């Protein structure tokens, strides 16, 4: 019962958030300028031309009806046709999505275990050289601009040593009707550098979080009890501390996965990874407005959905969340 009420409450919240976002987006588009002037030539158009274009675009309708039409289009995935590719914008974005998801998933599969492990290690040996090194390294890693990190990875990993390719997706294999790089050796090779570029800041973030969690949990009574019982430090760490710090870690993994979708914009355009992020930057530079709108909307919706999922997962992991929502 508790789960269902949490799920409904959270979905409703996510829905309201999306409505609010669409409203702000709608107002934003309208405040930028009259779209009629994208269609007619300002210098040569007669008032009659402008009036006809206004009617054709539906701009003579009351504002609330325009908003409903906009909403209807967004819900049905109709963002218009790309000015450049002459294909429906939404389909273009969806076609690029697997590449981005693949990159972000691989990066997270690297970052989550490595970050948690480093954090546990640092928290366990608080104040030692190892702990201080990990802490400093994580602050430094979070200070590296993501694009420069990506470029230096190319410089070291591709140009100076020639170990890895500097960009592109490599050969792909088909699975579930989509092309995936991780199924071929060459594709995996192409994944290494961009995935590392996305993973490094996240390793640092997760390590910091799991370090402070470990320190907190190690001071609690149940850990002392385990120690008194004579359990080995490793068993305490893995069977008692780790489950107790898992909630904030899962939360940050979920949030950062959404963040990766946004940060993929930078990494993808550097590694010419043909994903959503590269499409977004290319479209901004080509003034391909429908594709820009579709991409930004998709990233925002994905992020809100991920947030909601994380909260639900939170309720599964932590009984206290379920109980508090029933009151």
């Amino acid at each position, binding site marked *: 019962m508790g789960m269902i009420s949490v799920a409904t409450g959270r979905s409703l919240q996510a829905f309201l*958030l999306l409505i609010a976002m669409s409203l702000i987006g709608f107002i934003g588009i309208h405040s930028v300028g009259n779209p009629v002037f994208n269609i007619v030539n300002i210098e040569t158009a007669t008032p009659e031309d402008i009036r006809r274009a206004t009617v054709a675009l539906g701009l003579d309708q009351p504002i609330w009806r325009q908003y409903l039409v906009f909403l209807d289009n967004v819900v049905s995935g109709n963002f218009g046709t790309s000015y450049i590719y002459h294909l429906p914008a939404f389909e273009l974005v969806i076609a690029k999505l697997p590449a981005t998801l693949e990159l972000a998933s691989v990066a997270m599969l690297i970052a989550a275990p490595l970050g948690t492990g480093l954090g546990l290690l640092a928290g366990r040996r608080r104040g030692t050289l190892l702990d201080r090194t990990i802490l400093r390294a994580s602050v430094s890693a979070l200070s590296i601009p993501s694009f420069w990190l990506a*470029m*230096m990875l*190319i410089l070291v990993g591709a140009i100076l040593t020639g170990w890895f390719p500097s960009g592109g997706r490599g050969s792909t294999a088909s699975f579930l009707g989509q092309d995936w790089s991780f199924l071929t050796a060459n594709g995996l090779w192409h994944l290494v550098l961009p995935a590392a570029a996305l993973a490094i800041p996240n390793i640092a973030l997760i390590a910091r979080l799991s370090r402070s969690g470990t320190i907190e949990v190690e001071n609690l009574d149940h850990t002392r009890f385990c120690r008194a019982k004579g359990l080995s430090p490793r068993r305490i760490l893995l069977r008692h501390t780790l489950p107790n710090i898992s909630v904030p870690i899962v939360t940050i993994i979920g949030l950062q996965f959404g*963040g990766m979708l946004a940060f993929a914009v930078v990494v993808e355009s550097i590694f010419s990874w043909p994903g959503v992020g590269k499409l977004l930057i290319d479209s*901004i530079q080509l003034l391909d407005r429908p594709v820009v709108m579709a991409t930004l909307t998709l990233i925002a919706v994905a*992020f809100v959905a991920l947030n909601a999922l994380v909260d639900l997962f939170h309720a599964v992991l932590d009984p206290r969340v379920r109980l508090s929502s029933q009151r």
Partner: protein
Amino acid sequence: MKSRILSVLKKRPHGPVMTVSKLLLATYILLAVAAPMIAPQNPYDPLQIYGWEASSPPGTSGSGGHLYLLGTDGLGRDIASTILYGLRISLVVSIISSAAAALIGLTAGVSAAWFGKWVDVAIMRLVDLQLSLPTILIALIAIVTLGPGVDRIILALIIAQWATYARIARSVALSEANKPYMDAARLMRLPTSRIIFRHLLPNSIAPAVTLIPIEVGHAVALEATLSFLGLGVPIDKPSLGSAVANGFQYLLTGQYWISLFPGLALFGLIASINFVGEDVRRSLDPRSKSL
């Protein structure tokens, strides 16, 4: 407040990393202020740039009579000078935007706490909406809507950052609003604006102010990222981010210095701001000391 920050900076015992970060940050600020005097070349002046010396490696001596200590970029601009001038733009943009974001966020947060009811709901819903999305996404959406230019990028950074301040200021102002001195101000029938700006705001300001250094660091990184993507400052007046971006196409042909050195400068700047900012926040906010 100011003297407290200063005394904290002076007295606090700290390790070598802190000393290095503070020295580094001070050097950066000095270099940025003194840039026109110490830069060997004015990278914005086409008359001082020799096109045939484009992409010279570090250590080449140029026709202008000076040494290209860090080499030149693809247009023949001295990298060291570009870094010095770019530093100014990066710092000015991020300090102005952080200060403005703090001011707007504080006012919004305090107003939300003071007026309550629908004002509170409207402001805080917007804040929640923003904080639930990644900052880079907000900045991207803002800059795409606003268009390019230095003033636009400042505006985009303000839009991306005000919400953090608003949330903190509101929670502090809520607890301040019930204290006796606020009752006194209300009983004296002071005008609302005077109560807000002269009494409530100054007393709610501290926790948000401790955030500013960290947010300046974020702003530097955000501006650099936007400029790198070609959405930030114009290309003829590069910030550190766009200086790195200029070097990207040359990186693949092995001319590493064009992007390596501006990037190192940027990394050092962000890292030193982050270390110092963390330290300031930690010493002013006792709750976060355990971290």
